[in-house]
């Protein structure tokens, strides 16, 4: 099975519902042919609206959508040749699996024999051969999901849009489908936009992640970039767990918490306030006397990792250790420890970095 793949450009895209802030504002995004991009953000950040504008289901208030240089903005939905998988799958309940998958081909006037072949091929791709005459209601959630995927892919779309396709599946199935979707997308080389609020899903699937916040693009980058070098405190908090500490620069320009200097890579003008953010796995715990003094307030064993909460003068952080690493086993609640981290792993944001 082949599928087309196009180069998608969103230029200054904006959607204003007339009440409150725009749902999407000044969105610029370029997605290369064959690339898998995740639109990640909390609910209400505009990611679904963006996806529906690309599909043609929502009319943009301003801006343009280009696919391979073609301006799609004024093209009605049914002429766009875009495959979309909906959150609730949106399978046609009055049609069989085969009819569902054949629908898009029928709309394109494809000959009956070719429809049969391509439907069979698409169902084979999602491993549903033999389910042709079933009704959607007679399928499990995962199977429905795969029918929806086959239905979107069989039309050889220029672009594949996935709207939280995994959110209605249970945890185990979700991970399985994650792999399956990625594998099919790679094999077909189809340009894909994937909307999700689940950062783990975005990190695992996407070539690049576009983190959205209140209608704006907060950061665009590879999973590593977004996770390791978040552009804003919002991105840092939304992608993965992180500790945030309020600090102020002392006379020597070094940032201090509760008067004690903390390791960071840079110097700041005296008196400036900043937020220092450190991932839990970068926090080191050592003998008291070195770096910040703190006391263990809780130890939570969560299987793969153990989380150690510590609190000191004017701050509290959580450190994380793999349970294979036995260094935490000596610790007990109430014990004094020294808290530190490598200066290179500290992210420093000026105060109000989130405010706009």
């Amino acid at each position, binding site marked *: 099975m082949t599928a087309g793949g196009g180069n998608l450009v969103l230029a200054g895209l904006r959607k204003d519902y007339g009440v409150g802030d725009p749902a999407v504002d000044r969105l610029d995004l370029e997605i290369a042919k064959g690339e898998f991009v995740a639109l990640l953000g909390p609910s209400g950040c505009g990611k679904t609206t963006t996806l529906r504008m690309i*599909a*043609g*289901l929502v009319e943009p208030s301003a801006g343009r959508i280009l696919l391979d240089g073609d301006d799609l903005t004024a093209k*009605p*939905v*049914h*002429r*766009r*040749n*875009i*495959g*979309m998988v*909906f*959150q*609730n799958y*949106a*399978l*046609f*309940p*009055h049609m069989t699996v085969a009819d569902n998958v054949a*629908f*898009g081909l029928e*709309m*394109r006037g494809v000959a009956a024999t070719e429809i049969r072949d391509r439907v069979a091929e698409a169902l084979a791709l999602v491993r549903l051969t033999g389910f042709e005459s079933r*009704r959607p*209601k007679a399928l499990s959630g995962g199977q429905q999901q795969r029918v929806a995927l086959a*239905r*979107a892919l069989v*039309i050889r779309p220029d672009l594949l*849009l996935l709207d939280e396709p995994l959110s209605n599946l249970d945890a185990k199935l979700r991970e399985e489908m994650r792999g399956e979707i990625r594998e099919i997308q790679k094999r077909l080389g189809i340009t894909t936009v994937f909307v999700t609020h689940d950062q783990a899903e975005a990190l695992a699937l996407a070539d690049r992640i576009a983190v959205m916040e209140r209608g704006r693009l907060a950061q665009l980058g590879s999973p590593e970039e977004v996770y390791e070098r978040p552009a804003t405190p919002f991105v840092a908090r939304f992608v993965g767990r992180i500790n945030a500490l309020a600090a102020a620069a002392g006379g020597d320009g070094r940032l201090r918490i509760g008067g004690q200097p903390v390791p960071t890579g840079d110097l700041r003008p005296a008196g400036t306030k900043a937020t220092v953010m450190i991932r839990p796995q970068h926090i080191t715990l050592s003998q008291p006397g070195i770096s910040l003094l703190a006391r263990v307030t809780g130890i939570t064993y969560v299987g793969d990792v153990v989380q150690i909460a510590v609190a000191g003068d004017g701050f509290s952080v959580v450190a994380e250790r793999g349970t294979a690493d036995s260094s935490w086993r000596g610790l007990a609640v109430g014990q004094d420890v020294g808290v530190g981290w490598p200066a290179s792993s500290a992210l420093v944001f000026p105060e109000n970095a989130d405010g706009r």
Partner: protein
Amino acid sequence: MSRVGTVAARIGIALLYVFILAPIVLVFAISFSGDNFIAFPPKTWGVRWYVALFAHEGFARGFRVSLTLASIVVALDLLVGVPAAYAIARLRFPGRDALLAFLTAPLLLPTIVLGLAMLLVFYPLRLAATYPGLVIAHMAVTLPFVVRIVATALSTLPGDIEDAAATLGASPATVFRRITLPLMLPGVVAASALAFILSFDEVVISLFVVGPRLSTLPVELFRYVEGRTDPMVAALSTVLILATVSAVLIVERSVGVMRALGR
């Protein structure tokens, strides 16, 4: 709960069911009476009242009128009500709630008041005791149900499936024909059946707008019960009940079958 209590509760419930069903069951029983007057239990049994029923000119005429009337009413209800229901359930426009409230407003009015109002307005317009008058009158009390049922059926359609069809290349007209229409069909069938039964059974409003030349079956029945009490009415009632039950069963079957196809 104690066993005695449970048994007592069961018996109580059974008695309440007897109360609900007794009139209907006894009508059925007494239709086979051979007596001249209603007395229960009858002294003699037979089918003489069924024979009399089918020879009764007034009932036969009323039956034809009611059947014609209900058919016209259902057809017009669908023609007028389905587009309105579609607009209410599927389109976005200012005043949508007000429209639904207006179209279902006749249900708020007692039928006795509505019947009188129709009499007053139909008389000078020469619509009293005519088919157009009866059709308008029956539409007023059936259209609200059609609009409401079809609108509900449309608004409970699984979300996004019309959008999905559009992304697959279906034009708006095709989406309506291939997706929306088949999925709203069970609602339309249910609405038609209810409208038919309501129109066929309607008596209060009809009493005000019928005339000697054009009268419906329920009105004939009402007048007959008012005047005489013999078992012929029971025979007619039995026929009507059986007709209603079979209509309901047919609808249940067809809607059930369509459900099975649809869901």
